[in-house]
């Protein structure tokens, strides 16, 4: 798989369930916008569909980015296996729904639990033995895990892309002439609920406060008795669980294949960097910006470069404003 090249399914996310009346898919860049063939109504409907698609995608991105940031702030580690854990979420859910035959939502719960445990295992395997090693060594170990997870999934489930059913089938809601699949609406709701729960966790529980103390001042946290090792395990678990949830949510909208998570992870990197690697609000806003840039601008203006526009933004941010674009936003921190 080329490092470049986000597969098309991440872009439109529309390839399985056409959301726009059959008349005209958005095509042809700026010229197409004013093309006489496309009536104004259809253009608006298309735009609304693209907008919802972007918002739902941004929701998934924010979950992945949150997973990164939670882990980074508790352990100072960037986990390159994060994307492949997300892919694993898609495959595990597929396994429990299609092969074990669990009800869909039960399968979701089991998947997230499995991924939480996978995160714990990952911490034991790749982080705990390297506590005294350099950060680079740890990141390389996570890169090794990433490759191994991907290869393992390929051996287990084969390389043919899978389709995961949505709990809502292909049900749609009509908004301004556009058909919005209920799966997308569910994503938005789930993301909001999860973020609410995380805020409660980080602000309201002893565990959450301890974890935040690690991000603020590691040594001081250790001195006042925060169990740093236990926190790292928990952070890996939560982070991995979030990745699994993201995988579960996005899978009905795209084909599940081995590269799914890695590509989404790169976009989530962009969101995390834009958001300044810390504030929840920053991550949410940045995910929306990345989602909208990629899907709206990518759909209308620079189609060939839709996939890499977020990377261009990320590069610009890293060079010009490494503290992030939205880091100054006040709000809850994770």
């Amino acid at each position: 798989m080329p490092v470049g090249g986000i597969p098309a399914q991440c872009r439109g996310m529309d390839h399985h369930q056409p959301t726009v009346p059959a008349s005209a898919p958005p095509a042809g860049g700026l010229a197409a916008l004013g093309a006489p063939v496309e009536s104004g109504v259809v253009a608006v409907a298309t735009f609304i569909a693209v907008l919802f698609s972007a918002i739902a995608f941004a929701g998934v991105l924010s979950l992945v980015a949150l997973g990164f940031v939670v882990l980074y702030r508790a352990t100072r580690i960037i986990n390159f296996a994060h994307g492949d854990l997300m892919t694993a979420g898609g495959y595990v859910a597929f396994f429990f729904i299609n092969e074990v035959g669990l009800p869909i939502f039960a399968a979701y719960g089991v998947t997230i639990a499995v991924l939480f445990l996978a995160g714990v295992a990952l911490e034991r395997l790749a982080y705990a033995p390297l506590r005294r090693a350099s950060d680079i060594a740890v990141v390389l170990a996570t890169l090794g895990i990433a490759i191994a997870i991907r290869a393992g999934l390929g051996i287990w489930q084969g390389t043919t892309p899978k389709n995961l059913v949505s709990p809502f089938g292909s049900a749609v809601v009509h908004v301004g002439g556009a058909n919005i699949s209920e799966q997308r609406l569910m994503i938005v709701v789930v993301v909001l609920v999860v973020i609410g729960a995380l805020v409660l966790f980080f602000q309201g529980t002893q565990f959450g406060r301890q974890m935040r103390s690690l991000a603020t001042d590691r040594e001081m946290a250790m001195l006042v008795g925060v169990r740093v090792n236990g926190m790292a395990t928990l952070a890996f678990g939560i982070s991995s669980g979030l990745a699994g949830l993201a995988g579960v949510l996005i899978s009905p909208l795209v084909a599940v294949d081995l590269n799914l998570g890695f590509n989404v992870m790169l976009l989530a990197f962009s969101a995390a960097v834009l958001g300044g690697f810390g504030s929840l609000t920053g991550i949410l806003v940045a995910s929306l910006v990345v989602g909208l840039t990629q899907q709206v601008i990518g759909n209308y203006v620079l189609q060939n470069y839709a996939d890499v526009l977020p990377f261009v933004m990320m590069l610009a941010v890293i060079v010009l404003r490494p503290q992030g674009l939205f880091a100054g936003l006040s709000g809850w921190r994770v």
Partner: protein
Amino acid sequence: MVDLARRLGGRLPFGLGGDPNLPLTYQRRHYLTAAAFVVAVALSMPVFFPDDASLHLANLWLIYLIAGIGFYFMFGLAGRFAFCQTFLMAVGGYTTAYFAVQRGFWVGLVVSIAVSVVLMTVFGLLLRRVEEFYFAIATLALTNIGIEVLQNWPSFAGANATRFDIPPITILGQRLATEMAAFWAILGFVVLTLLLGIFIERSPIRRQTLAARDRRIAAEMSGMNVQGLQLRLFVFGSVLGAVSGAILGAWQSVLTTDVFGIDLAVGLFVMVIIGGSESLWGVIIGSAIVVFLPNQLQALQEYQSLIYGAILLFGVILMPRGVAGLGDSLRTRFFPRRWEVAAGRGGDGSLESAPPWFKGSGVAPVEPAHGPDDEASSPLLEVREVSVAFGGVLAVDRVSLQLRKHGEVLGLIGPNGSGKTTLLNAICGIVPYSGTVLVRGRVTPRSPRHVSAAGISRAFQSPQVFPSLTCLENVLVGSADREFTGLTGAWIARPQMWRHERARWEKAAAALARVGLLRYHETPSRLLTYGHQRLLEIARGIVSDPEVLVLDEPSAGLNKAETDNLADLLEELAVGGLTILVVEHKIDFVDRICNRVVALEAGRVIAEGTPGEVWRAPQVAEAYLGRRGIAEG
């Protein structure tokens, strides 16, 4: 076996261990190893690579080796976590292909080298301040963008970035179209690459880049241009990537972007990690494993990536220093160096005091740059109204102080949190401040490197020695003479480089002798005791003949004997004309070495004078003990 080793003086037989008349870094017989490797590959070709299929693999190995060596320089030595080497291979491949069709391979190669130099210099300059993870992410982003551009640029890279028409390498009009002919050409490229690499290994660059990789601030404070050196190594490594890509295209006559995917990116990491991230020779083994192992495991084809992943994970955990590190431990076992023998590996504990190349005497003091008490026209160091704010907290509040005389020792005291270390950090340009710092009447620029060049040396509160370097190399990093320490010295002006190096060795060895550590000149500094590490830092500080040596709690963590020894040393240095600014807590230590003391409290100067005056000042007692403490005392 160990007996034999001792009889050989801890050296490999037949001079294979290296030339004892040079410092340890230069003892490695790189040229010999390179020649042995190239001859072995050439001779073993008919045996191991008898047919086109196996020769094909050998060629692939050598091509990846070139990219891998480039990656070794940017990732292993410079410590830059770069993901863009595969992109550079693509740049080299497609650029060469584009120009080679009309003008032949060599024109294409030259253009692609030029393109990659310009591209990566610009990119590297943009990212010069970006650290570790952000650098990794940024280079990953660059790779994605770059590959996408190639895929959308059919007139340059072919439709869908696929080219079938790449002409082979030509030499004197001969098209090297067979595997055999290509093998010799590629081997030629490998020889060139190894030579450029060895020139860097045998130059001051190696110690500098390792110092900067492990202790960036300390390296800058020693006067190194860290960003500049890392940028140069990054660009050099990238160019090797481009050359490798250019050869790959010409050799296969076909290019697609699939080759330059994540698998190859990970493969490059595996090469350097397996080989050992600090050894040029490790890359040869690492790249051989990456290329030949999957081929040996044909039956396990579908497990290939799984095995790569496992190698990366367990390699990092079990063999952090790679195959080269493994070889090094074997050598230590059977042919220990003198310091290793002395460190308890079966020797009698004695160390020769001076290295054979050292012409000075073992105890010669560093020549004082100035006589004692010679009044300078303008103050050596003047701090004028310096303030440092962290958020809303004023850590240092309009502090002024002066050091006027050579050989003066000014103590800076104050309770914890009174801003002493912060003031030192401001003086050294490590934290931003308002106000002015002048050295000999000239305003110092606000970066550690320029502060060092202006004549201020610094030792840190917890000793910041460069752990992967020997003691001698640690001191060499602080040398004021930086002539020919870069790529020019390594590649072009080698005679001049050698001349300056010899002078630097002498000076560094003298500084080591001054602090009493000369006998550890070959010992890796990470093995020194805490007290010795502190002395080593002082040696690194004085080797550049600074105007002012800045010390931050030099006696912290030392026992009584070590503290006395340190006080003796500082007194001698001051008598020799060295001016010292020292933050210290121990009262008798301050009394003994300082001529003058400034007391800080809450960022402000509350007393100044001789040690006796300052200790007796009521406001000082109050700062340390509080009002009630005085009443009760």
